[in-house]
């Protein structure tokens, strides 16, 4: 029996995702996403009393979700404002907790980015003190790379296996009209390995995009969802794990091998299902290797066997672990924080069963993950079709 206040995702919207969106600003992209998600839920702005929505400005304190009371036309009952709380698994889990606790009844989570990157201030690393990292040439892809290199050293994971992930997910984006890289490719493993090296073992096609776009979600109670038009999708369980602040100290594989395992146990324990029950995976893919590590984290294969696990079409539609059928961040979109939310949106759409040619038949359970080993934190969530 579902609790009447059980957190339920009832609305979603993503703007166009593209390398650039000429003429657009972050503020108007977020507004489009928020309006769109509320409309998708069959609600009006004044129905929303909780906001974990980025506020790029102009006007008001940048980032403060309180600013949204102006557009939502009432004082807000609950807000969250950190750039990682206005997006993705972390944002949805906090909004879900707020809804279930009765702090608010209808919450929106959303963010977006457009316009010149350098003046936007949305880069999570913009204000970090990386005194003992950056002078040596450290950057995000290279931080993920040292984890992958150690995994290859310890277990013999091959460049071809890593490239298989890239080719598979990029080919999902190849056929998704909403992906920023729609139409690009298709790619073979050889194509990935022939693309320029960025930071070994990662070639350009192993690395996620950087682009513009916005997206938002609406979360409410199971009771309220009954009167709304979309098929409800429940937040069944979640887990988060933060090893340390990211990018200052090196991610060590011997520590990262454990990262996420407690979050997995917490999320699946709460949901009352097992990783083997998941029908569709929407996993964080800042680089291709992270997919391999996450299947090990989930316990769907033994540590060190992730490279072999993803072979033979397992990640494709029709495989036993269909993964990132929207093209993920490798071919779909990465906008700073919006990609965190797009992971959730893809899971919700699969459970609404509206994805047509990339739909997993009869999908009941979806696993959503954010972040990863290089960033030294993991958030994940299990969604279920009501």
């Amino acid at each position, binding site marked *: 029996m579902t609790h009447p206040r059980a957190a339920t995702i009832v609305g979603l919207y993503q703007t166009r995702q593209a390398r650039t969106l000429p003429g657009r600003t972050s503020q108007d992209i977020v507004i489009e996403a928020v309006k769109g998600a509320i409309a998708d839920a069959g609600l009006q702005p004044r129905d929303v009393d909780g906001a974990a929505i980025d506020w790029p400005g102009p006007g008001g304190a940048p980032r403060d979700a309180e600013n949204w009371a102006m557009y939502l036309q009432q004082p807000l009952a609950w807000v969250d404002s950190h750039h990682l709380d206005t997006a993705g698994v972390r944002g949805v889990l906090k909004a879900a907790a707020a809804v279930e606790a009765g702090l608010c009844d209808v919450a929106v989570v959303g963010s977006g980015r457009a316009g010149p990157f350098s003046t936007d201030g949305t880069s999570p690393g913009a204000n970090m*003190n990386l*005194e*003992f*990292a*950056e*002078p*040596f*040439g*450290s*950057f995000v*892809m*290279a931080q993920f*790379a*040292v*984890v992958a*290199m*150690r995994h290859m*050293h310890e277990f013999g994971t091959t460049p071809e296996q890593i490239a298989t992930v890239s080719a598979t997910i990029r080919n999902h984006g190849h056929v998704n009209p909403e992906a920023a890289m729609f139409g690009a490719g298709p790619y073979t493993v050889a194509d990935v390995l022939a693309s*320029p*090296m*960025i*930071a*070994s*073992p*990662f070639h350009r096609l192993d690395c996620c995009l950087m682009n513009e776009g916005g997206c938002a979600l609406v979360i409410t109670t199971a009771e309220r969802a009954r009167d709304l038009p979309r098929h409800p999708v429940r937040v069944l369980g979640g887990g988060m794990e933060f090893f340390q602040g990211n990018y*200052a*100290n*090196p991610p*060590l*594989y011997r520590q990262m091998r454990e990262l996420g395992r407690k979050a997995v146990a917490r999320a699946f324990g709460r949901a009352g299902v097992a990783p083997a029950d998941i029908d569709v995976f929407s996993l964080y893919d800042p680089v291709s290797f992270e997919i391999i590590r996450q299947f090990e984290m989930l316990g769907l294969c033994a540590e060190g066997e992730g490279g072999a696990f993803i072979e033979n079409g397992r990640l494709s539609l029709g495989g036993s672990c269909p993964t990132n059928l929207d093209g993920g961040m490798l071919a779909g979109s990465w906008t700073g924080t919006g990609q965190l939310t797009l992971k959730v949106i893809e899971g919700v759409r699969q459970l609404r069963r509206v994805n047509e040619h990339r739909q997993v038949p009869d999908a009941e359970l979806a696993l959503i993950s954010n972040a990863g080993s290089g960033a030294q934190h993991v958030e994940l969530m299990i969604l279920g079709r009501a």
Partner: protein
Amino acid sequence: MNTNDDEFALAPGVMPTPTLPSISTLTRPFWDAAAEGCYILPRCNACGRHFFRPEVACPHCFATDWAWVPASGHGTLYSYSIVHKAPAPGFAVPLVLAVVELAEGPCVWSNVVGCAHADLRIGMALQVRFEEVSRGVHLPRFEPRGGDGDARPS
């Protein structure tokens, strides 16, 4: 090439860095020692363990009583990536971004220099080599350690 100082020139063979450390009161002793050719680390007076980067409190035991102590400058290569895309204009690529496991315990970011890429081996013995990258700023990079310590996988 010049960095921030028109009169400063890198010594031959020294890799440039366009991203200089943002030195604070907390971290100043490390860079001052580096300029003297000394590799020092914070060591906790409560639990006796070394740590890095410098922090107000010991990450092992939360004590705030710690001191800078001389370190061996020895370590092993825990992992690395050969960076081909310059993270900022002015880096000379390819460069070796390394995670060095120091003999005293902490793992730190650095570069491996003086070693052909084909000879890089995880587990290889390394020793610190300070390189002046801007006037008075000496970066602790690492090179293969001599004796029989060359390129031995862990």
